[in-house]
Every structure is written in structure tokens, then in C-alpha cells.
């Protein structure tokens, strides 16, 4: 490797690491993203001068970059903040696909008998990159509601997936050890794509972000493997950084839900036990519903109010309305805080992004561990479009699919106001006893309409 390129790649790697480090504080985070982008520009700039371009090569790079930049910029600009998770899945998937294609192209240049040191990482990149591509596309389709978001299961599914994986493994060994048959990677790619789809199909609901994070780590590893094939330092380091950090993030995310990664991936969450949970006689139980005026009085004369925002708030685009209500209450001397569950929204941190969009200062956003002891001193907990994260079943009923997930102690507050569109269960598809609690007042309707009504009523109170 040329010395100038080596130094430029080293600089890019340092910038990636610094960028990730800056992401650890909300104030430095945006700079962190710029730092990483600068690293990317340097890495790309250093790569170009020493390449020998064919005419066709020049054309396809020009056209490819233009088309990709257009799709990427347009997609990223147009996407609604609520749709961020599927957008991340999409951008991740195309990266995995690119890594697989790079490995395929490189393998072709070696003819029939590539050396093991090149063949092994190439085959790894093809398999993992293809799984990431196909899996991410299924995740995108599920979150975008192009297909059902619930787990798709059938008898013997684990066995079929296991056989697929074994088949791929056998194929890999055959290609690497016995003989490299020309174009054997095509079959390998097809198998890996099928496994990618089959792997994500049985996962649904609240577990999707964990899978996206895992596939993100996969793509990182596929990129690193392509780096081994091309003997490219920048790809190895950047890919590995993402692979390692993505794996840790995946673990943190499943920890936040109180479940093991294995349970997330193979548990078909929200599918098995919903029937029994929903059959718990919810028709028989009654709930207390309140009017905007009742609730306004309750809120306006409270001392401490904690707002628990959930995905329903985001869907209704009610971030601004909730901030207006909070500002109004603060003017009356009420202390308002937001309790953010680690998996509020559809990804850890997703809710913070949405509330930040409405200029809610992040000093008011309290993480679960920070605020859980304060619920018992709260006069009112306002649950806006959240459900599973305040479901006491996570603490009390071992049979529930969310049992063991850490939850917000909303049930300890003096009053609970539940703003919900209907009695429908939440993302995890299970019933919530908190709605039937005598301390709970239900306020039905679209989150934005409800909040607007409340704002008007509080002004009058």
C-alpha cells in the first residue's frame, strides 16, 4: 500500500473513532456525525488517485455515485421522523448488499482457484452481506407495513432455518476446501438471501429494532471481510468498528427489554401467548373515562406531573401539542418531567429524537432509572400513546410475554391518566391491567386532538 494512502486511511480511522466518541453527548453528537463524514471523504479521496480506471469504470462510478447520492439524500430528507427505524434498516441493507457484491467481483478476478486468504473472507462477506440485505428488506417491509408486522411462524420453522444454515455452511466448506466451482457463489448468495428472509420473518413487534441493530453489526462484519479480500485497511477498521459496536448495542437493546438475544431472535415474541392474555375477560372489566375538563383541573392543580410518551404520540404527530401542555403547566408552577423508557418509540432513543424535534429541552427527559423512584411522589402520570412500557404484567405475571422487562413505575403515582385511541393492546399485543386500575382515568381519542382539548381546558382552568 502506498504510504500516502496508508496515512490517509489511518486519519480516516481516527476520525471515525473520534466521531463515535463525540456521539456520546447530546451536545457533541452532531459534530460527531460530521467528524465521521469527514473521515469518509478522506478515505474516498485517498482511494481515487491510484486507481486505474477503464472507461466503463469511470462511467459506472460517476453514474452510480450520482444515483446513490440522490436516492440516499432524498430518502433521508423526506422520511418522517416516525419512520426512522425502517429507514435505518433500508440504508443498512443496501450496505450489506454492496459488501456482498464487492466480494463477488473480487472473487471473479481470481478465476477458479482463489487463495484461501482471499476466498475465506470473500465467502464470509457474501453470506453475511446477503443475509443482512435480505433481512433488512424484510424488516423494512414489516415496519413500513408493506406486510404484516406480527411474527410469521409455521411448524418446523426452526428446523427449516437450521437446515438452511447447515446447507450454507456445507456449501462454504465445499467451496473453500474441496474445489472452487465457477459461479458457486451465486448459489451461495441465493441461499443466504433466503436465510435472511426466513430469519427475520418470525420476528415482529417490539423486537424489530434489536434485529435491525444486529443486521447493522452484520453489515459491519461483511464490510470488514471485504476489506480482507481487497487488503484494504480502511474497510477492515471501519467495518470492524461497526461490527463490534453494533453487537454491543444489540445486547444493550435486548437487555433494556429484559430478555436475552436468543429469546428475541427465536422466541417469536408476541405470537404465542397473546391468545390467553387477551382472553382474560377484558370485556367484563370496566374502565373509568374522564372529560377534558376533569383532567385539566386535575393537572392544573397538581404539583408534580410526569409524562410518559409512547409511539402513539409520535404517530399522532403530537410532540408539539404535548410540549404546549407541559409549558402551560410549568407556567402554573407545576413541575413537569418526561419519563423515557429505554425502548419508548420503536428504538432506544427514538422518543428523545421525536421530543427534541418539538424543542422539549433534554434536561426534562429523564431516563427510567433516574425517574422510577419519583413516580410515587407524582400527582399525575400522563401516559400518552404508551402502553407496554407501563404494563405491570411485566412485574407480576410470569406468563406474560413481556414478563421481566423493566417498566416505568407509573402505577405508583396518585393518579394515572391514560390517553389512548382505544382499548387496543400495544405493540407487544397484550392487555394492560393498569387501564383497569381504580386510580386510572382513560381519555380516549387521537393523541393530538386529546392534547389540544386538554390545552384549551387547562387555559380555562
Amino acid at each position, binding site marked *: 500500500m502506498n504510504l500516502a494512502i496508508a496515512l490517509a486511511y489511518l486519519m480516516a480511522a481516527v476520525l471515525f473513532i473520534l466521531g*463515535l466518541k463525540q456521539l456520546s453527548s447530546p451536545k457533541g453528537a452532531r459534530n460527531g456525525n460530521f467528524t465521521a463524514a469527514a473521515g469518509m471523504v478522506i478515505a474516498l479521496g485517498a482511494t481515487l488517485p491510484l486507481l486505474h480506471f477503464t472507461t466503463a469504470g469511470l462511467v459506472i462510478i460517476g453514474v452510480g455515485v450520482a444515483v446513490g447520492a440522490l436516492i440516499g439524500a432524498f430518502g433521508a430528507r423526506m422520511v418522517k421522523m416516525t419512520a426512522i427505524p425502517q429507514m*435505518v434498516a433500508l440504508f443498512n441493507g443496501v*450496505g450489506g448488499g454492496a459488501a456482498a457484491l464487492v466480494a463477488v467481483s473480487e472473487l471473479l478476478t481470481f478465476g477458479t482457484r482463489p487463495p484461501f*486468504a482471499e476466498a475465506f473472507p470473500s465467502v464470509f462477506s457474501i453470506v453475511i452481506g446477503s443475509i443482512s440485505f435480505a433481512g433488512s428488506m424484510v424488516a423494512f417491509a414489516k415496519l413500513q407495513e408493506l406486510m404484516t408486522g406480527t411474527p410469521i411462524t409455521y411448524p418446523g420453522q426452526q428446523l427449516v432455518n437450521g437446515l438452511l444454515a447447515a446447507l450454507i455452511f456445507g456449501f462454504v466448506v465445499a467451496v473453500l476446501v474441496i474445489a472452487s466451482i465457477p459461479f458457486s457463489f451465486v448459489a451461495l448468495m441465493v441461499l443466504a438471501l433466503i436465510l435472511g428472509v426466513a430469519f427475520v420473518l418470525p420476528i415482529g413487534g417490539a423486537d424489530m429494532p434489536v434485529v435491525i441493530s444486529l443486521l447493522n453489526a452484520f453489515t459491519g462484519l461483511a464490510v470488514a471481510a471485504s476489506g480482507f479480500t481487497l487488503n484494504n485497511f480502511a474497510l477492515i477498521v471501519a467495518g470492524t468498528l461497526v461490527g*463490534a459496536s453494533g453487537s454491543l448495542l444489540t445486547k444493550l437493546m435486548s437487555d433494556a427489554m429484559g430478555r436475552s438475544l436468543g429469546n428475541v431472535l427465536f422466541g417469536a415474541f408476541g405470537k404465542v401467548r397473546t391468545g390467553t392474555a387477551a382472553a382474560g375477560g377484558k370485556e367484563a372489566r370496566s374502565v373509568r373515562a374522564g372529560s377534558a375538563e376533569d383532567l385539566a383541573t386535575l393537572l392544573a392543580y397538581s404539583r408534580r406531573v410526569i409524562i410518559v410518551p409512547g409511539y402513539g404520540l409520535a404517530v399522532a404527530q403530537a410532540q408539539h401539542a404535548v410540549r404546549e401542555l407541559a409549558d402551560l403547566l410549568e407556567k402554573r408552577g407545576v413541575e413537569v418531567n418526561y419519563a423515557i423508557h429505554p425502548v419508548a418509540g420503536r428504538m*432506544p432513543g427514538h422518543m428523545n429524537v421525536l421530543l427534541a424535534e418539538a424543542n422539549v429541552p433534554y*434536561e426534562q427527559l429523564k431516563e427510567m432509572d433516574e425517574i422510577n423512584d419519583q413516580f410515587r411522589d407524582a400527582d399525575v402520570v400522563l401516559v400518552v400513546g404508551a402502553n407496554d412500557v407501563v404494563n405491570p404484567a411485566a412485574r407480576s405475571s410470569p406468563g406474560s410475554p413481556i414478563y421481566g422487562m423493566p417498566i416505568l413505575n407509573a402505577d405508583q403515582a396518585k393518579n394515572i391518566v391514560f390517553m389512548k385511541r382505544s382499548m387496543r393492546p400495544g405493540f407487544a399485543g397484550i392487555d394492560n391491567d393498569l387501564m383497569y386500575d381504580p386510580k386510572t382515568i382513560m381519555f380516549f381519542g387521537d393523541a393530538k386532538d386529546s392534547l389540544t382539548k386538554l390545552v384549551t381546558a387547562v387555559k380555562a382552568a
Partner: protein
Amino acid sequence: MSNELLTEVTYFVLAIFVGIEVISKVPTILHTPLMSGTNAIHGIILVGAIVIAAGADSPLTIALGLVAVILATTNVVGGFVVTDRMLEMFKGRAAAPKSTATR
């Protein structure tokens, strides 16, 4: 094992530790931007895509190169832009009235 491969494996192992170390200090509220940011970084595969596309001379390699460059560029540009969109919203209120009065 050749010298070059040995060096590469060294980078690989060290990068694993750096990746874990850097991420372990990120607060939960930044997990989504972080995931999106790391997502943009693995767009470095664009370097690889350009390397293989540069020498494309047959219909097959041209097709592979073109698709790889498009996919990788979408990853890089989309990843960084969407991360920036998320992060530009993380603005604190300089003087927060009352709200900071937590116990």
C-alpha cells in the same frame, strides 16, 4: 500466514476492542442516532465498490460494479444525512425556566 494478513488481523482485533470501548459510554437517548451513525460508517464499503468498479471491463463486472456503487453510495449519503437530521433536533434550552428544579 503472510505478513500482510497478520497485520490485517491485528487491526481487526484491535478495532473490535476500540469499537466496544467507544460505544459503552453512549447514553440510551443517543442509541438511535448512534445506530444510524455507525450505519453510515459501514458505508465505507463505497471505497471497496469504487475499487472493484474502476477496473470493470466485462458486462458482468460492469453490472456488478454499478449496482455495488449505487448501493454503497445510498448507504453513505442516506446514513449521514438521516443521522444529521436526528441530531440537529437535540438542542437544549439555554435557560430552562423551572424545569431544572429536580430533586
